[in-house]
């Protein structure tokens, strides 16, 4: 059987479902092909906050803010509830030097108009009564710059809402080949277990697996899987009122300064960045870390131990709460920490929309909208030249 579509999106994570929705909304006859179930990749093995305060000042923050506000618009528009919630965020600073560095960062963001502010120990303890009393302070982002959603419900929502515009989704789809026109090298069709699919446009949204799809058309896409693990608590009191992250981890990664946290070798080795949030079902999510382990997403016992050790430093009461589950996922990592949202000069009709590392959920609505502009041959409402695939050289 041969089917024909205006556009074919590969990968049904937060990025692919958003791209597919936006293309269908623009009137293109669109198919979404997914090798497993919808949201079976990174987008169901992650946290789900959209933040501006974990972004570099400039374009990174701007994309974040755009996406956060756009999420709110979609939450109002969609019949499908994806658990959108505005909340505050605290980047907690264990020590004075961290506080000082966070303040520098805050000043830059303030200059661009983002209302971040510092809170000192006393106010922090009032905002977060369960936090360790000796934490020096925190960088606070009000709910205007921080949201939470259910990451997999975001994917389901885009698909269900996209169906209203005629979007067709094909799950458990095995793509065996992508055919290009021998003369022009432009996109012609795909071979799948559903038959041959003719199309002039393919958008590769396969996240950490995007390089596999790239290989089918002879492209080398520099994305690597970067593992992260979370622990899920039993239903319990919301130990925190805001999304909590530790500033020291971020600081230890800054170039140029030689900052080291006062942590055990295990926490260092496991590259733990403590974070804590509550879900709408009243579980706590306790994380997290960043490791390169290929596509192995088994939870490592050492990681669990290290996360708990670090978490107890900030929230001692966690000690008596039960963990009921763990999960690990991979972030689609790109060396310059910016996603690829781009056409490909050498292959007309082939687009890449992947590599969102730790921000794919946050950037999903933004990315889908910009990608639709690119595919429609329009100007984007945002300068995204830095996200071009050509930056890696050909």
């Amino acid at each position, binding site marked *: 059987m041969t089917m024909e579509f205006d556009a074919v999106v590969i990968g049904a994570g937060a990025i692919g479902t958003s791209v597919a929705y936006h293309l269908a909304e623009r009137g293109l006859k669109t198919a979404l092909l997914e090798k497993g*179930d919808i949201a079976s990749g990174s987008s169901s093995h992650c946290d789900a906050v959209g933040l501006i305060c974990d972004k570099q000042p400039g374009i990174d923050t701007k994309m974040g803010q755009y996406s956060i506000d756009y999420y709110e618009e979609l939450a109002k528009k969609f019949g499908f509830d994806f658990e959108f919630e505005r909340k505050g965020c605290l980047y907690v600073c264990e020590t004075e030097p961290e506080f000082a560095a966070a303040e520098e960062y805050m000043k830059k963001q303030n200059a661009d108009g983002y209302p971040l502010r510092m809170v000192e120990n006393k106010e922090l303890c009032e905002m977060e009564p369960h936090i360790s009393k000796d934490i020096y302070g925190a960088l606070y982002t009000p709910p205007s710059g921080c949201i939470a959603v259910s990451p997999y419900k975001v994917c389901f929502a885009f698909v269900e809402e996209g169906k209203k515009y005629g979007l067709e989704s094909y799950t458990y789809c095995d793509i065996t080949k992508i055919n290009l026109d021998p003369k022009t090298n432009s996109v012609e069709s795909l071979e799948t277990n559903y038959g041959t699919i003719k199309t002039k446009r393919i958008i590769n949204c396969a996240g950490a697996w995007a390089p596999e799809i790239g290989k089918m058309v002879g492209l080398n896409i520099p994305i690597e899987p970067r593992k992260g693990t979370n622990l899920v608590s039993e239903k319990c009191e919301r130990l925190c009122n805001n999304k909590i992250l530790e500033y020291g981890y971020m600081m230890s990664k800054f170039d140029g300064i030689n900052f080291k946290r006062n942590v055990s070798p295990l926490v260092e080795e496991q590259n733990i960045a403590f974070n804590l949030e509550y879900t709408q079902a009243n579980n706590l999510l306790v994380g997290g870390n960043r490791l390169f382990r290929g596509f192995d997403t088994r939870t490592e016992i050492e990681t669990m131990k290290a996360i708990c050790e670090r978490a107890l430093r900030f929230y001692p009461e966690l000690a008596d709460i039960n963990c009921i589950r763990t999960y690990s996922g991979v972030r689609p990592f790109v060396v310059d920490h910016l996603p690829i949202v781009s056409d490909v000069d050498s292959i007309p009709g082939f687009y890449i929309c992947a590599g969102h590392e730790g921000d794919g959920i946050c950037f999903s609505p933004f990315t889908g909208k910009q990608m639709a502009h690119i595919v429609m041959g329009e100007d984007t409402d945002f300068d995204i030249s830095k996200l071009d695939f050509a930056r890696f050289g050909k």
Partner: protein
Amino acid sequence: MAEYFSDDMIVCRCEEVTVAEIKEAIRQGAKDVVGVKRRVRAGMGLCQGRTCEKMVQQIIAQELGAKPWEVGTSSARPPIRPIAFGDIAKGIVE
């Protein structure tokens, strides 16, 4: 077995998920236990599906005309049973 499950029957007690909700998840494209879990939370509770998984499998099998063992299981992840964060930090994991 077809009419064995009435729609308002609770399948997952921990998360209070009914037969009707599981059928809706299947309508939305869930083809296995994990797909149902992600859509309606059946199996996400304190017992992590120990109580409800068999029944969820049977409902999916019935709806899709498959065999219960063809619709998968929840992915195995530590810990095996609920365990305090404090214990994990001390290296007690099982």
